[in-house]
């Protein structure tokens, strides 16, 4: 197994990697960008004290049984931007362990499921220490005969007081043959914490459509703008050239909506 130790400020851009890969981050700010992930691969991230990692994934091929694991030390922070435009049958499972005080995870994911894609995205968070923080935002667009499932459990173990855990899962559905599920679950064994979960699955809201059309946009424009609102916020996790690439991909994939 290859292990990469990162101990100075750097921007990593790995084009090829082995299917089992481990990183260790010392107390530096690091940005890591990965384009597509190998089938059956395991990615491990160890964040030592005060390490900050910005992790951006852009997937436009397949995404088969990929596992992402992160272990966060004291006052470390991981910010994940996952742009999932993978095709076919896909499964992604992320497990984030918040192991020491001040460990913080921000997880942003946007996923498009179209044609006959079948996607299962699981994000599990373990609050293993008091004063650990996590926010998960999963946004999805489901069309044609696409299947899309967001699930994940935030565990706050006993004694992990002052921890905060928020989960948000939203899927907009376009066609009658779509199957979309959002299951944000909280398992909490401590009183002195802050936690919330929100889920919504459904067609574009009539009130939103009315609001936008009352300003002169036609129905198609209004629907498109609202739909892009699910996918485009993920762009801010990427540099400009990749933003443009993802942007044009979104436009292509949604052109028949």
């Amino acid at each position, binding site marked *: 197994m290859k292990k990469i130790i990162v101990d100075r400020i750097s921007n990593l851009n790995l084009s090829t990697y082995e299917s089992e890969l481990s990183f260790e981050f010392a107390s530096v700010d690091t940005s890591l960008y990965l384009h597509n992930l190998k089938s059956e691969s395991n990615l491990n991230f160890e964040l030592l004290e005060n390490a900050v990692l910005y992790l951006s994934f852009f997937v436009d091929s397949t995404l088969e049984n990929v596992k992402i694991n992160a272990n966060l030390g004291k006052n470390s922070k991981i910010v994940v931007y996952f742009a999932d435009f993978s095709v076919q049958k896909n499964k992604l499972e992320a497990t984030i362990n918040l192991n020491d005080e001040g460990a913080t995870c921000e997880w942003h994911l946007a996923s498009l499921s179209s044609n006959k894609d079948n996607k299962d995205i699981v994000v599990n968070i373990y609050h293993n220490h008091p004063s650990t923080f996590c926010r998960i935002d999963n946004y999805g667009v489901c069309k044609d005969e696409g299947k899309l499932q967001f699930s994940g459990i935030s565990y706050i173990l006993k004694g992990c007081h002052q921890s905060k855990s928020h989960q948000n899962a939203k899927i907009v559905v376009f066609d009658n043959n779509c199957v979309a599920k959002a299951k944000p679950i909280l398992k909490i064994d401590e009183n002195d914490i802050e936690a919330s979960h929100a889920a919504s699955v459904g067609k574009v809201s009539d009130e939103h459509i*009315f609001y936008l059309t009352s*300003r*002169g946009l*036609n129905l198609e424009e209004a629907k498109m703008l609202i739909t892009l*609102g699910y996918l485009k916020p993920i762009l801010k996790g990427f540099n400009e050239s990749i933003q443009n690439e993802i942007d044009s991909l979104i436009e292509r994939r949604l052109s028949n909506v």
Partner: protein
Amino acid sequence: MATLKINDLHVQVEGKEILKGVSFSMSEGETVALLGPNGHGKSTLFNAIMGHPRYKITKGSIYLDDVDLTHMTTDERARAGLFLGLQNPAEVPGVINSDFLRAAVNATSEERVSTYKFYKLLDSATKELKMPFDLATRSLNEGFSGGEKKRNEILQLMLLNPKIAMLDEIDSGLDVDAIQTVADVINKLEGEGKGFLVISHYARLFDLIKPTRAIVMVNGKIVLDGDPSLIKRIDQTGYEFIKAELGINIEKEENKMNEVSIGSCAVRESIKK
């Protein structure tokens, strides 16, 4: 000069008739106060004029000059020159305010507005409204305070340049200074010849925008159409004089829960027999 003509408008919401024959007309350059007790159809009228799909027009017509809007879609009405400033504007996550505004400006203007020209317009309008420019770059209304949402409605009004604007409780959620700012914008646009139809429960806004007319809606109908002195009278004495002078009984919203339970008991009784 464009004139909005509402003729014998009947509107149902979920099978219940709310508007029962509304008729009035107003023109550009007029500022009309729409008054009336809560639950008597003021907001319903605005939504029906704008073509909200939940509000079904069962009879009557809406014209803007010679154009029949009655069966048009909402966006067609907007492009014809109507605007509705909502009481509770929706929060639309992920849709960037300025992207939306730009799409709206392009949809309602005859030629495409260049990026440069649009940002100049946006910049001057936000300054006039004393709005932080970053509100334009955030998600549409998401996390905005009540006052910020209302300013954002006025921002849209300024950019879209409609002929007739309907404003539904635009002053709620605004502090005193913000009401003044919004009133200044309305007065300026009125001076440019736009028409305003305004719902508010507070005399303060009307003091500032000085309506040219006041109309009063009771029981889903316009029962009074007169000069703006009506605003002061209603502000001071309420709506009771309508009953005394016009002989119109002001309907109160009934509580339906009891009727349902009585109904089901009666059904059970009748089955026993």
